[in-house]
């Protein structure tokens, strides 16, 4: 009986990470069915979040998982359901283990040759067979975090508007439009980015920034080229806004009316009541952030088209860069030597690990900000 909460604990963690494996496999196999993956990722995340919150409850003393498991043994139907749940998580565990094993074993060649230097090396030279993934790690992490930084305030703003301000009709229509954004294939975003967004950003944002601050701030050093880290961040932001928005909206809608009433009855303004709702929804919003980050980190097609694909680290966000997913997509078919192929697969492995680490950090961040009232995360 004792190890069962532990088992669920592990299951929950793994469940909530499954989407990233999905993204990685997705990018490795080079397919582009975005709408559908977004939805399955969302289901996974929500399931994971639910379990997570149960675990939080279990730690704080009100154990719903424990009682559930205790009762599960008493009835046939419950036992069948329990077995199915265990089976499902075992399948997921096995899939993850399989992917990890495959990635590690296929990249043996490059792991053996470069070791840890693969992560720190900045040279990516297929001719000399020298591979270092640092520029790609940098490009992936920075473009995603920038995209998230742009998308998060906007998404929460849109969600607040949809839930707290808009009437039912506006909410329905606007929600539909926002969700439609999530179903647009990323190659369409990419093409739009190349022809519309990139020139716009270069002229209206990049050039003025480089002119004004280029000399003094390395972050904006010119000359402002079109395809750049900034362009990638903007297109990623546009792509993850629907994800974060719709999850935030759903979670905010689920916050009971009595919370708003409690705030209003104390003489709060609308904005203060909204802050209460957002505070209540924070774990769900975190789920949205993690999901959005997952999408951003693994996004391939759109980013490849607008980031400039240049494997060098540059401190300026107005300069081109390269991401892990992009390099895999661009070079996988040209990888003629075994070492080249092995290095690319190791990039995939690093992408997987990066996703892990970034999500862990995001979780830790939110946890440390809100830890004092962790048990209050549930209604």
């Amino acid at each position: 009986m004792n190890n069962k909460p532990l088992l669920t604990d592990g299951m929950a963690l793994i469940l909530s990470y499954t989407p990233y494996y999905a993204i990685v496999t997705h990018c490795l196999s080079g397919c582009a069915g975005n709408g559908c993956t977004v939805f399955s990722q969302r289901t996974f995340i929500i399931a994971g979040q639910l379990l997570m919150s149960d675990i939080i409850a279990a730690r704080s003393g009100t154990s719903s998982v424990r009682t559930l498991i205790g009762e599960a043994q008493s009835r046939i139907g419950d036992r069948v359901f329990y077995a199915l749940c265990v089976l499902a998580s075992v399948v997921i565990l096995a899939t993850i283990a399989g992917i990890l094993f495959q990635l590690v074993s296929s990249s043996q060649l490059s792991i053996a040759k470069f070791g840890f230097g693969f992560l720190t090396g900045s040279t990516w030279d297929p001719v000399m067979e020298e591979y270092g993934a640092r520029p790609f790690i940098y490009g992936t992490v920075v473009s995603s975090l920038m995209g998230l930084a742009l998308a998060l305030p906007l998404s929460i703003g849109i969600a607040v508007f949809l839930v707290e301000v808009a009437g039912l009709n506006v909410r329905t229509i606007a929600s539909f439009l926002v969700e439609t954004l999530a179903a647009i294939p990323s190659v369409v975003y990419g093409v739009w980015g190349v022809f519309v967004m990139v020139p716009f950003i270069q002229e209206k944002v990049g050039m003025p920034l480089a002119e004004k601050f280029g000399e003094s701030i390395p972050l904006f050093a010119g000359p402002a080229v079109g395809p750049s880290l900034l362009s990638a961040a903007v297109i990623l932001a546009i792509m993850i806004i629907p994800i974060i928005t719709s999850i935030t909206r759903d979670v905010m809608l689920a916050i009971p009316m009595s919370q708003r009433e409690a705030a209003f009855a104390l003489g709060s303004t609308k904005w203060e009541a909204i802050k209460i709702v957002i505070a209540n929804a924070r774990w769900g919003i975190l789920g949205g952030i993690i999901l959005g980050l997952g999408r951003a980190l693994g996004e391939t097609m759109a980013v490849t088209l607008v980031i400039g694909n240049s494997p060098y680290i540059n401190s300026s966000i107005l300069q081109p860069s390269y991401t892990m997913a992009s390099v895999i997509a661009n070079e996988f078919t040209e990888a003629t030597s075994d070492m080249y192929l092995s290095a690319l697969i190791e990039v995939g492995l690093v992408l997987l690990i990066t996703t892990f680490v970034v999500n862990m950090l995001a979780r830790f961040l939110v946890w440390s900000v809100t830890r004092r009232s962790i048990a209050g995360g549930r209604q």
Partner: protein
Amino acid sequence: MQRHDDLIMTEEQTHSDNTSSTPPAETGVKKSDTGQHDAPTKSERLTVGNLGVAFSGNSAIRNITMSFRDGKATAIIGPSGCGKSTLLRALNRMHDIIPTAKVTGEILLDGENVMQMDAVTVRRRIGMVFQKPNPFPTMSIFDNAVAGLRFNGITKRSLLKEVAEESLMKSALWDEVKDRLKQPAMSLSGGQQQRLCIARALAVEPEILLMDEPTSALDPIATAKIEELIHELKTSYTIVIVTHNMQQAARVSDYTAFMYMGELVETGKTRSIFTNPTKKQTEDYITGRFG
């Protein structure tokens, strides 16, 4: 101004100026001198005239005309679903946040039309304790107790501490939580949460306190303490309390209003309502024949 104890709240008295539009039938006791008031007396802090609330066009309460007196507790009784909460929530504009709700009629707070006042101001002056405990789950016990003060821009730590202690004391919770103020509010029991909500409402010192079955989740000891509190608060607050407990209504209130099916059947001094109801429905209800 509590000299007018013998006056019974009926629409004829308090709203002789606007009763022409109200159907006369429902209201009960009419034993005092009428025509005395062209405007509400000063002791009538809050008066409602011909109040109606409808949800998506379905009327929940209608034709409610009565007043609530300064320094008195008014109990609202009636069977479940008769519209007690709906009436209470109309008083501090709580229906504003429900898009389907439509409020008609008039509510006057010290002669000022509540429907035309700023809703935030109204709610700062008219506090509310809800039927179900609704503490803020993301906040600690302490933060819950002073949440209203913070909404009103008070941040001085020493003052917050002082008010928190004082209001938790009043709501009979202080002894149980004084060593764990930093813990999350959700770590409290349901009854403790309700007392926390009472403390939270008291902390902002409203002029009028609306309590919707505040003790339905409490044990007899805590209930007794809350009733004691109501007695105490009466001297400086106007209290409106919804209750299903006849004994409680008899114990704490000076005036009682009986509602049935969305209408005000009878209103008057608690003693006379309980000993000498004029309507058969009231009598049946308080003697337990229905409801």
